[in-house]
């Protein structure tokens, strides 16, 4: 046992090491000059861990599509303020033949790729043929018009370097065809450059996953998965060079950390703040909240394989068992708009009707009393979605329906959903392109309801056998009169309001928080309309 006197003799070596360590820490901890992003550099924090490729023939994730849209140009664009209006991009004029099957696009003169190569019709031909040949995840957006690896060489051609001709297998609605050409998969790549990088018949896919060959406002300098994407401006961009020399997109997984970075001035824009975090900083003069209504819908689905859930009364009753306004007003606070139909607001044929309210008495009456069933609700373990699921659990209980929550990782929940092993599912659906067919096909089409069905739409995943609606959906894509076509989609939606296993809760409103000195950052109406091209910065406060 150490005596008092002995205690006075300290372990000096250890103490010295400790002091030295603290001194090093202190030296590193000298307060730096306040961080401020330079005026010609744009820094954004967001969750970019969904990116698996930056080849536009393969990109099918939110972040990848956003970045790709800032690198590549497409033949056509839609107007951000009215997605039914089509504008020129690489094509400055276009027409369709009388029989509705042959489209001619005239290539805008004077455009160049980031490599210096001119943009020609041959590049467009190569880009589209490449998409069909590679047949990667988003290829169906073009392939649905009858393009196959066998016929694509004859169906897509360039009679001269300024004209692109595309021949579809049927006379589809031109609006649908044009909408699909505004999708990311229809980006025009630099054929000469990509061909030079092709290996083992991959059409340059491996190389283009991590490099760029576009004519858009930025070129890809580097993509480090789960870390950072760096874009450098393209000085000869045809609409004018971006003001920002470089755009840095940093992966910051934690929304709370994004907020800290924003408040310190280390980033210009934070993309993933929660409604609570946004509410806490909404009155700050040096920050600005930005909102944009997107096409994504959040919905509750009832698996029709379940004896309990396939009762028509149950399908209808649950629509009165969701606290729509509570969810939008309390949980999502500005990041959602009430919407109860399958075509998003702003799209052709959208229906501005929200007939359902939280009304447990009506639901009980529809269910006819008695003991309610017990069901499971699968949901992603994401904070807001869990809160919504808890709200659903509470409101269903008002009609005696016992809901057990089954939160899981996104892919785990999806695997179960795709296997039709769920009872209730709460999730998100965003259109693949700005046309009502994308959602109608998902929700209101199910060509083969058997377990072996190859077209695994949302209707199929919920085992909802709907031959009549499927036929209506198929017919609507061939309707060339926009007015009649819009009426077709409204009729489909009215039928689904009357009876369907889907409860659409709300339409997503995307939110970003930017520093007040940042101007011209565009969120746009779709996940691939986020644009950094027009970003400028005024002098700091």
């Amino acid at each position: 046992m150490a005596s008092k006197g002995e205690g006075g003799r300290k372990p000096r070596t250890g103490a010295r090491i400790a002091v030295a360590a603290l001194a090093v820490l202190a030296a590193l901890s000298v307060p730096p000059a306040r961080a401020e992003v330079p005026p010609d550099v744009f820094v954004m924090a967001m969750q970019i861990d969904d990116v698996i490729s930056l080849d536009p023939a393969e990109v099918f994730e939110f972040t990848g599509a956003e970045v790709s849209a800032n690198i590549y140009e497409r033949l056509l664009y839609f107007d951000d303020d009215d997605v039914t209006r089509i504008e020129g991009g690489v094509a400055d004029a276009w027409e369709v033949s009388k029989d509705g099957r042959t489209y001619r696009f005239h290539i805008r003169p004077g455009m160049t790729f980031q490599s210096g190569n001119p943009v020609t019709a041959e590049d467009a031909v190569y880009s589209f043929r490449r998409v069909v040949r590679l047949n990667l995840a988003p290829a169906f957006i073009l392939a649905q018009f009858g393009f196959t690896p066998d016929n694509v060489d004859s169906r897509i051609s360039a009679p001269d370097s300024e004209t692109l001709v595309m021949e579809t297998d049927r006379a589809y609605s031109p609006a649908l065809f044009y909408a699909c050409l505004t999708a990311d998969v229809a980006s025009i790549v630099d054929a000469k450059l990509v061909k030079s990088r092709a290996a083992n018949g991959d059409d340059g896919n491996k190389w283009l996953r991590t490099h760029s060959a576009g004519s858009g406002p930025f070129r890809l300098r580097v993509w480090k998965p789960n870390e950072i994407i760096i874009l450098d401006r393209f000085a000869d961009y045809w609409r004018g060079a971006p003001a920002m020399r470089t755009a840095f997109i940093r992966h910051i997984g934690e929304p709370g950390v994004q907020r800290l970075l924003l408040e310190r001035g280390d980033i210009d824009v934070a993309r993933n703040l929660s409604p609570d975090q946004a509410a806490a900083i909404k009155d700050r003069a040096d920050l600005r909240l930005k909102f944009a209504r997107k096409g994504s819908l959040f919905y509750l689905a009832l698996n029709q394989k379940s004896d309990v859930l396939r009762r028509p009364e149950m399908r209808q009753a649950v629509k009165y068992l969701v606290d729509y306004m509570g969810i939008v007003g309390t949980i999502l606070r500005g990041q959602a708009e009430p919407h109860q139909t399958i075509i998003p607001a702003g799209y052709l044929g959208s229906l501005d009707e929200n007939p359902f309210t939280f009304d447990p008495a009506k639901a009980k009456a529809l269910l006819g009393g008695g003991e309610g069933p017990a069901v499971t609700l699968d949901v992603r373990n994401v904070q807001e979605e869990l809160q919504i699921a808890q709200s659903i659990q509470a409101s269903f209980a008002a009609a005696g329906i016992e809901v057990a929550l089954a939160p899981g990782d996104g892919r785990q929940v999806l695997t179960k959903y795709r296997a039709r092993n769920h009872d209730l599912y709460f999730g998100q659906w965003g259109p693949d392109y700005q046309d009502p067919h994308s959602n109608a096909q998902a929700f209101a089409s199910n060509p083969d309801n058997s377990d072996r069905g190859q077209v695994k739409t949302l209707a199929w995943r919920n085992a909802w056998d709907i031959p009549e609606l499927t036929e209506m959906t198929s017919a609507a894509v061939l309707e060339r009169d926009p007015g009649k076509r819009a009426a077709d989609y409204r009729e489909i939606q009215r039928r689904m309001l009357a009876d369907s296993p889907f409860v659409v809760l709300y339409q997503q409103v995307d939110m970003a928080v930017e520093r007040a000195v940042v101007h011209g950052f565009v969120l746009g109406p779709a996940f691939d309309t986020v644009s950094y091209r027009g970003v400028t910065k005024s002098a700091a406060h």
Partner: protein
Amino acid sequence: MPFARTLARNLLAAAATILGLLIVTFVIGRLLPIDPVLAAVGDRAPADVIARVRAEMGLDLPVYEQFFIYVGKALTGNFGESVLTARPVISDIGRYFPATLELATAATLIGILLGVPMGVASAVRRGQWPDHVIRVVSLFGYSVPVFWLGLMGLLVFYAKLGWVAGPGRIDVYYEDLVPAVTGALAIDSLIAGNMTVFVNALRHLVLPASILGLYSLAYIARMTRSFMIGELSRDYIAAARIKGLPERRVIWGHAFRNILVPLVTVIALSYGALLEGSVLTETVFSWPGLGRYITNSLLSADMNAVLGGTIVVGVVFVGLNLLAEMLYPVLDPRARSARA
């Protein structure tokens, strides 16, 4: 040759451990209720694309065949491509592992430099106020969730005081300024002679390393205290004191030297755990490390990446244990004589 026999025995045990790792990771990958094709092609790919990718990934083969392919790949060092990053797994590991190594090494150094003296001081002043303070610090490091601690650390030292740099390994403006040699930015910047990048990298490293180091410190200090209390109660310590040796020599020259063997094991285990188990710290600090890579890959059933990452961690873990065991004879003459 007893040493060669020991080495052979240890290597055999290491091989068995790694084979066990392979089996466990394969079984976990197959038991997870996640379709790996989803990670590769997304939720909306048509049925023909899903079927083609499933075949390309070998998932249409019988399970036993998949296992042999899996083991075969591990033995040949070919881990294939990661589904999530679409890059060769080996190049992913080459990027993520040095980041983790840098963080874990800095944290372990903090743990050793502070934890060992604290543990010794705590044992020497057992029951007195330094002991109580050190025990509270250790308990804090052990029991406070690292996730919360990381966020609070960022809030106080980065956002409020501005003493340290924010999340990430380096300010974005310094990205790609120094060539990657070791993959550890602090070292690479020194090699390149770029002191600006070096200081910036250290400023980014100091907070996550300190947070992780607190955990390491807590463990090392507690174990050092425990070893030292045992050692200080031995007869030879009383004899040394009776002989009138200075207390400093009794503590550091006699007692501490005799706890080095178990202490090295504790440090090796703590270091190994930090190499793989710092997922939450890596998440909070946006640190692109191996722990987060393996966790994300496992949650996506990206088995190539899980296999590669697990093998690397397993080999390092086993290697650290081997190293610790090889150090025993150096640190303890009794171990030398036992082997002789």
